[in-house]
């Protein structure tokens, strides 16, 4: 059986990056799971790029409203104190660097923080959505993903082979095996999953990892 964190645990670890009062956009995939991991008592404003600031939890069954959906087309609610606006206003907010953080999924991240998350070249067509705006717009870009592909190839690589979403834009990578910071001099291994060693993580990583002086185990 495969070790490391579950997708839910990756989301939980990513949620530890949230701070009181932050404005945050969550991408599709693992990042949407972060919604359910926000520590009790913490006020975080979730932005949805098609026009919500203050995304709430899913509605109770039977109370779905077709006019309130998230970017994955799932029914949502809004919290008290939310606001609604157009996509152009939403992206003015994103591109104007008003968001504190975005948490995104990824296919690949490079040693210098390049992100590839919109197109698998073999498919021949990709969907960008708001990712290209978010990576330059949010003050902090956190990536959540599986550490390796289904075939066991590293997703953290020296240079992305997939088309880029953004250049030198990722700040932190949270995977099932590790938490890695993108520093000025390359990748820094900050935390490893329970049961993993830095050596094992490095073996599954396509770029050189420096070890943080505070290297520790991921706690979720």
């Amino acid at each position, binding site marked *: 059986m495969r070790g490391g964190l579950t997708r839910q645990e990756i989301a939980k670890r990513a949620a530890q990056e949230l701070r009181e009062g932050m404005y945050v956009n969550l991408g599709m995939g693992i990042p949407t799971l972060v919604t359910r991991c926000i520590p009790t008592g913490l006020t975080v404003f979730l932005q*949805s*790029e*098609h*026009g*919500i600031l203050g995304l709430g939890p899913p509605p109770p069954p039977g109370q779905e*409203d*077709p*006019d*309130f*959906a*998230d*970017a*994955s*087309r799932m029914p*949502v609610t*809004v919290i008290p104190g939310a606001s*609604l*606006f*157009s*996509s*152009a206003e*939403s*992206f*003015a907010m*994103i*591109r104007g660097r008003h968001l504190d953080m975005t948490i995104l999924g990824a296919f690949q991240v490079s040693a210098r923080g*390049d992100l590839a998350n919109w197109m698998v070249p073999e*498919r*021949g*067509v*990709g*969907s*960008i*959505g*708001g*990712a*290209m*705006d978010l990576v*330059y*717009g949010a003050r902090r870009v956190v990536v959540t993903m599986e550490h390796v592909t289904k075939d066991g190839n590293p997703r953290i690589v020296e240079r992305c082979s997939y*088309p*880029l*979403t*953004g*250049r*030198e834009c990722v700040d932190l990578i949270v995977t099932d095996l590790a938490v890695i910071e993108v520093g000025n001099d390359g990748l820094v291994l900050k935390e490893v999953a329970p049961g993993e060693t830095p050596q094992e993580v490095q073996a599954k990583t396509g770029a050189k990892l420096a070890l943080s002086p505070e290297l520790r185990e991921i706690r979720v």
Partner: protein
Amino acid sequence: MVNKCYPSATAAVGDIGDGATIMFGGFGFCGIPDRLIEALARRGVKNLTGISNNCGLGGRGVDILVRNRQIRKMVATFPAQRERTPFEEQYLAGQVELELVPQGTFAERIRAGGAGVGGFYTRTGVGTPLAEGKERRVIAGEEYVLEFPLRADFALIHAYRGDPYGNLIYRGTARNFGPEMATAADVTIAEVEELVEVGELNPEAVITPGIYVDRIVAVGRAP
């Protein structure tokens, strides 16, 4: 007495011809001008260029026109869905064209088209394949690409409530691209769930001022 109301969706799209460029509001399943698109499908016009966040899915929105082979080209941000769509198949078969645009650039280009902005510089896309061939410029030490406005012959949008002057309000995330698309087409056609009397909408809360709307048709609330 100014009255922009049309009796039916069919009448409202009655002069859209072959080869038209059309903006379609909607994000996912929110805010799709379903009745107008159905009327356009019945009209059977061909070689349309669509400007829409996605390229339709699940038999709704642009998907109807794609299946009908009415679309020649799409300008979109999210053409590929998890499931494979008719658009994707036609695209991979070389039967439709696609101009892929980051969503924020897409929205801003539409706004620029409506606001008389001749072009603008954005950071989005820098260093990616989508910046290839685009003019670059370093401003205050940061790299930007130059983007140009998007306009259309027609904009088809969905709103919650509207009045005979064309004032509109939206509901929830169904607002999305509607307000800006309304500004960026020669003819803007809005389907509304409810038509109200002039003066019923709160002037402070009107999202699309009537000046942007040429035709309005009441379609009721989707079941």
